[in-house]
């Protein structure tokens, strides 16, 4: 939670600075963002590759456990697609790209802003990136707040699927508390696989 607050704070600081720069008609080169994004992807890859838990987890995967991340992905994408019927401004694939963030707000918002620039133009791409940022932060907050209710009405897997990519870090403690210790492994495996799927699915839906 503290981590997300710092991120939001810096995003807001950037907004204020950008607003100020705009008054003086100064623009910042967009290529810089792209290279920092490449750096981030390299770091994310290295952290996955050198994680010692990765080997254990791959060896212990049983097919039924894969149903949990699959439920997250199918459930999120189908309902995000339905939203495009209401938000006529955005295409069905735009909405699915935002949904594919699975609460990984930093990566999804940046990827969408970068990858959508070619087809939507700078302004609309930044708008969709901002929506992705807010959507995925809200998803994390919804999971943190409503985990007890989700477990009560939709079973012990519900907060794991709701948490998306965050079930490996920020939402793991609360999920452990309400879904039970025996599902910690399921939550971590789910978090890793959904984490991996974010850049792949977001780029895929941005390219359609």
């Amino acid at each position: 939670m503290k981590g997300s607050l710092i991120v939001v704070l810096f995003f807001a600081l950037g907004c204020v600075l950008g607003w100020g720069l705009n008054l003086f008609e100064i623009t910042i080169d967009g290529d810089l963002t792209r290279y920092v994004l490449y750096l981030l992807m390299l770091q994310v890859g290295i952290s996955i590759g050198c994680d010692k838990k990765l080997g254990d987890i791959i060896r212990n995967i049983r097919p039924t456990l894969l149903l949990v991340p699959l439920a997250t992905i199918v459930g999120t994408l189908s309902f995000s697609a339905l939203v495009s019927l209401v938000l006529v401004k955005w295409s069905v694939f735009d909405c699915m790209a935002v949904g594919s963030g699975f609460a990984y707000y930093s990566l999804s918002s940046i990827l969408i802003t970068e990858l959508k620039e070619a087809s939507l133009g700078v302004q609309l791409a930044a708008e969709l990136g901002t929506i992705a940022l807010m959507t995925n932060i809200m998803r994390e907050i919804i999971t943190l707040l409503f985990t007890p209710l989700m477990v009560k009405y939709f079973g012990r897997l519900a907060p794991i699927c709701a948490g998306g990519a965050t079930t490996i870090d920020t939402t793991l403690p609360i999920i452990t508390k309400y879904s039970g210790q025996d599902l910690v492994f399921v939550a971590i495996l789910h978090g890793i696989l959904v984490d991996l799927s974010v850049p792949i699915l977001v780029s895929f839906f941005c390219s359609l």
Partner: protein
Amino acid sequence: MFIVIGIMFGGIAIGYLLRKATFLKHIGKPINYTIILLLFLLGIQVGSDQNIIRNLPLLGGQALLLAVAGTLGSVLAAWLVYRFVFKKKEEKA
């Protein structure tokens, strides 16, 4: 899109080859700094766009709709998997 995914898989290979190196255990910190820097840059881009600033409440409403829909969809799918796969196993056990 392939550049981004390619770089990530390259990183996974590097991380796997260097998994014995102790300095990589602390990769989490630089990742956080990069994320903060990127969101700051995204903020600059958003802030310098008067249209987005004016539309911020509207964008927030759209974001809330997408967040609720995505969460609801995954919770319903989770309920199906729990009800028909996991719970059956627990009953047998």
